[in-house]
């Protein structure tokens, strides 16, 4: 127990505390709010706004798609299908970075396979304003690990949806839409929100995929931290990186607290 505690304090506690402390120190070591002020303005503020926006986009859309996919699989009869999807989701949800980037360049890059197929029917996405190496390109690529993550998280919650409820609703004359609106979605809502919060955190923290896909040109907070660490910074702003890290920690702490609250609500139906 003691070695584990010491290791965790040194490896996780001390570095995190260092980031928070240095966020409030000037380069000469004096206590200051200048770093925090810098990162809430201009290009760094834009980075936070973009990061939040991409996290919202890539938690809501894959959240809904993941729920639909999980439901389609959950209600299907094939046990092989279920097992394959469970295994594949586990693998894909932890996927990202360079491998994913290369797969998407080969798919939706200017000479990609899907780009070529779509040009055959006259729908080359690059001619219609799509750019893989941009903000929305990153969002498209994030779907690849966000949807499986949602499938993993939401499938246990679908088990809480008793078939008897659906039968009862139908016996009372409810349409499929009405069943979902008054029974299904309200029961699933806390779990869905919980899943989306996880997706939000995962998109907000992601660095490798955005960095390798856009060569660091997209304005997101993690990329900006990487720039500061690599020395691509305006002189006198060395400690701005720590303030950016501190900002990310605050956002993620809020997400975590919301997640715990939502989970408590969701567990009511899982008993």
């Amino acid at each position, binding site marked *: *127990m003691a*070695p*584990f505690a010491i*290791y*965790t304090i040194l*490896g*996780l506690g*001390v*570095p*995190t*505390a*260092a*980031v928070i402390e*240095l966020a409030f120190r000037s380069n000469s070591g004096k206590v200051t709010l200048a770093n925090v002020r810098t990162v809430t303005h201009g290009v760094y503020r834009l980075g936070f706004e973009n990061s939040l926006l991409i996290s919202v986009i890539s938690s809501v859309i894959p959240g809904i798609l993941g729920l*639909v*996919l999980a439901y*389609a*699989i959950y209600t*299907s*009869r094939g046990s092989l*299908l279920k*097992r394959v999807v469970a*295994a594949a989701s*586990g*693998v894909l949800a932890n996927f*990202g*970075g*360079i*491998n*994913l980037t*290369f*797969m*998407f*360049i*080969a*798919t939706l890059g200017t000479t990609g*396979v*899907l780009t070529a197929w779509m040009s055959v029917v006259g729908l080359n996405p690059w001619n219609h304003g799509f750019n893989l190496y941009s903000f929305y390109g990153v969002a498209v690529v994030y*779907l*690849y690990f966000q*949807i499986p993550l949602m499938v993993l998280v939401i499938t246990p919650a679908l088990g809480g949806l008793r078939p008897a409820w659906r039968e009862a609703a*139908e*016996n009372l004359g409810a349409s*499929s839409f009405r069943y979902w609106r008054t029974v299904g979605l309200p029961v699933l809502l806390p779990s869905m929100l919980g899943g989306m919060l996880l997706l939000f*955190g995962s998109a*907000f*923290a992601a*660095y*490798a995929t955005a*960095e390798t896909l856009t060569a660091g040109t997209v304005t997101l907070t*993690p990329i900006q*931290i*990487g720039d500061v660490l*690599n020395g691509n910074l305006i002189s006198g702003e060395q400690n701005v990186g*720590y303030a950016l*890290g501190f900002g*990310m*920690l605050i956002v*993620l*702490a809020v997400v975590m607290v919301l997640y715990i609250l939502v989970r408590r609500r969701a567990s009511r139906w899982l008993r």
Partner: protein
Amino acid sequence: MASLVADIAAEDVLAAPDIPCVRRRRLLTRFRYWRGIVLLIAAAYFLIPLYAGLRFSFQNDYGHWSLYAVKALPAQTGFGAAFFLSLRLGAVTLGLVLVLMVPTAIYVHLKLPRVRRLMDFVTILPIVIPPIVLILGILHAAPLWLRASPYLLSLAYVILSYPFVYRSLDAGLSAIDLRTLVEASRSLGGSFVRTLLHVLIPNLRSALVSATVLTLALVLGEFTMAQLDLWTTLPVWIYQFQQDDAHVATAAAMLTLVGTWLLLTVIVLLDRSQSRRAVRQGLR
């Protein structure tokens, strides 16, 4: 055949009184279409990029099928060094995390059940604190001699692998009758180390395999920390090499991917054989 039986069963249900029969059947067929379409789109979305990546790896510059990228890979400048660096980091990380986690997890399960919630919380933290922020703090807090060594990355990867390793061990420990095993071994005169090596570890084999595989997959694929600590591990090399030869770089990426997936399949298979064993034991 099975689906035919199920269909007949469905007909029986539909024929039962009090259920609006025709509407229900329409609902079912509509629902089946809907599910087919969803599964088809999902399969396309997840398989096309995989196909595209593999196709690009087995093509030369003129778009013809070729094995040149795979064959040329081992001879590329820096590939061997990056590959072995990643392997070394993986081995060191794995050794450290197992030595740290196995006794801790066993001790907590045996003596401190009340600490389990705290352990759940602590081991989930590396998922909440992004690697990019963690490496920022580590590079500042680590002493200079450690920062000069690639094994600083291993020390950091140990933290990143907490969630996977602890979760596997926790599941494994919950599945065995830990207290009885330990008491039996102790009353036969086994020391704690002997109990650990000869009684507990064999019983935790599948949990240890899954912890091992997940840790190795993590280390072999980790990009963020390695790039910012300026060490050319395999993923960093692949990223840098794409400017020289995109086919070779993609081939390397797809090969590591396939390798990792094969490793992960091992876990799934082990999981299943273990659950089968559990079922058999339950029947006895």
